[in-house]
């Protein structure tokens, strides 16, 4: 339909099946072509930053879980690391390894969801999504085993983790990491060379690296554009400097690359977990830190590589038991910056796919 017609405004969301939550996109369409968009967010703005400033440090851990509810482990870990930096305490070895295992598992779970959603937005009738959820459920089972929760774990603590792994965990995890590559191959068989998926994603929504850097895009979205920035490598935190893993990058920066990027990162995460399980030492999992803490005055910025990108916590302490300022550098929000450039000129259906391939979580955007 190449006919140029009168543009009209289409309101996508906030309750739309593929907005990943309550995102609203005011799209101006010309026929099917998107000629202008305005993202409207805030439908899930729960005021987490304010709530966190009104609560004591340890009570903010559940809040951090609820930031990005698909990657709760990563977020609580980043927060806990920030407070540990403020307090100047160190973490036992075993706790560090457990954290890494948990965070990388969380990354796989999160990427599974992201890739599944991309497939859904391209229009498969939930099949890849269901397959990915099948494996995601296994990861959730592992988390359930450790934390007794499936989604929001509240597992990280200042100076370690809440409690040790149950003894059944490691065999189950080993089984999972042995089986997971086979499942990833199955996804590739189902999707990676599917012609329809190729024509729907290749060359669509290209994000050039210069724009990505200028817009402070981070995470898989940035790496799919060819910029090898991964906090795990460029500013190693925790014990990531002890593992061998690659930072996969892709070059085109289109939807297909963003999808493949996540698949590759899953494989790398499996590699990290495998090493971490092999090296997992015995010992304490928590250095005995009081529940209520009063960090000394000062500010601290800690950033980690969350599944969606560079997650930062900026904490200001005034010496009381509540953070004076609690700011989250939410990767999802900032990854939205180049959305307009990426979407404009594409069809409505492409817009949905492009939007999905950035992989946002509203809880983190709106906070």
């Amino acid at each position, binding site marked *: 339909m190449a006919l140029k017609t009168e543009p009209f405004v*289409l309101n996508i969301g906030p309750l739309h099946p*593929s907005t990943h939550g309550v995102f609203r996109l005011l799209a101006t369409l010309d026929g099917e072509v998107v000629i202008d968009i305005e993202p409207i967010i805030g439908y899930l703005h729960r005021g987490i930053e304010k709530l966190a400033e009104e609560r004591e440090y340890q009570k903010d851990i559940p809040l951090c879980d609820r930031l990005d509810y698909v990657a709760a482990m990563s977020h609580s870990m980043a927060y806990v690391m920030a407070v540990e930096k403020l307090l100047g305490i160190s973490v036992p070895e075993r706790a560090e390894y457990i954290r890494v295992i948990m965070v990388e598992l969380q990354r796989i779970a999160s990427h599974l969801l992201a890739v599944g959603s991309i497939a859904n937005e391209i229009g*498969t009738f*939930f099949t890849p999504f269901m*397959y990915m959820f099948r494996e995601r459920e296994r990861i959730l089972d592992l988390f359930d085993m450790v934390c007794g929760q499936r989604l929001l774990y509240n597992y990280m603590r200042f100076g370690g983790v809440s409690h040790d792994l149950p003894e059944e965990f490691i065999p189950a995890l080993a089984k999972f990491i042995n089986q997971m590559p086979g499942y990833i191959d199955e996804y590739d068989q189902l999707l990676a060379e599917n012609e329809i998926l190729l024509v729907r994603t290749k060359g669509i929504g290209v994000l050039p690296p210069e724009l990505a850097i200028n817009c402070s895009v981070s995470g898989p979205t940035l790496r799919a554009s060819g910029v090898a920035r991964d906090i795990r490598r460029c500013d190693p935190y925790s014990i990531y400097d002890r593992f061998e893993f690659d930072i996969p990058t892709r070059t085109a920066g289109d939807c297909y690359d963003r999808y493949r990027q996540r698949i590759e990162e899953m494989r790398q995460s499996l590699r990290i977990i495998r090493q971490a399980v092999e090296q997992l030492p015995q010992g304490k999992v928590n250095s005995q830190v009081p529940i209520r803490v009063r960090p000394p005055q000062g500010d601290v910025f800690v950033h980690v590589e969350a599944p969606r990108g560079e997650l930062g916590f900026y904490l200001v302490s005034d010496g009381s038991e509540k953070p004076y300022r609690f700011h989250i550098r939410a990767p999802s929000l900032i990854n939205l910056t180049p959305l307009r450039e990426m979407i404009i000129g594409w*069809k*409505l*259906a492409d817009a949905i796919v492009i939007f999905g391939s950035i992989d946002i979580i509203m809880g983190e955007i709106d906070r």
Partner: protein
Amino acid sequence: MTAAGTISQASALASDWPGNFWLHLLVFALIILAFVILTVIILIWLERRLLGRIQVRPGPNRAGPFGLLQPIADVVKILTKEDTVPGWGDRLVFWLAPLVAFVPVLLVFAVVPFWNGALLADLNIGILYVLAVSSVASVGIFMTGWASGNKYSLIGAMRDIAQLISYEIPMMLSLAAVVLVAGSLSLNEIVAAQDVPYILLQPMGFTIFFIAALAEANRTPFDLVEADSEIVAGFNIEYSGMKFAILYLMEYSEVVFIAAIATSLFLGGWRGPFLPPFLWFVIKMFAVFFVLIWIRGTLPRLRIDQVMAFAWKFLLPLALINLVVTGAQVVFWPQAPYWSLVPINVTLLAALLLLWARFFRLGGSRVGI
């Protein structure tokens, strides 16, 4: 005065039936209605169960044995639901649209032979009738989209119209090839002429017809009309209650309709050994259903411009070539034995598909704003 024209022909064909013409009409109309609705119900059940199996889960199994009553529960529930009419939009058209969309699909079955001669009216323009009547359904869909006063439904309707107009042409051309081979427009005669199923004689025709039929029935990968992830529910977004039930019925009736046409034209219709002809017809239809559901469980969706490009750049040339080749075969080699034509045509299909796939590109780059 006796009924003239086509109607008289129909009654003449049906004269071996018990009762007079009107009774035949009535009985057959009821049979068709029952057949369509029953098949749709089973189809819905089958689709949900099979999709479940594809997604390694059981699918609906609580209502009735194996969940067989699930579609009935759905229907009863939908029918007793409040019938909402959007505050804006066109109320009259909103009311009419489901009927306009559904009735043509039902009308198509008038010429579908369930058995040798077992059809409501064996029109001598059978295939033309099918194409003509089914194209009316698109008007109904457009009416739903427009009357809802909702932009999503309008987009869905626009997509449907574009898709239908585009895919009608390759479909028509592929059917024309069948007509050339069979030498008749009447479906019953075409079935009768199929000593081997035309899927073997017309592999290219079948491929094109099948793809076009997927598009006509708005099935994956051409289900843009109600693309969940883009335009929520498409043209029926504002419908609820009875009217939604009719639209829902219409969608699945279209599937039944394309399965019935594919069965009649390419799969040998009611012909088959051992089993009663009607059963053969149903079995072949369900084989088509299975493939449709399987495709739905696997494939992503194309984009609207790609759908159009696919029709115009891929299917249409192939359909034309197919028509020319078939015409040549019919004219220059009318007495060709099947065992020689089948391999020739299959080879031709493979060669053409590979060749065309090399040159063919789905368009759709970014539009400069």
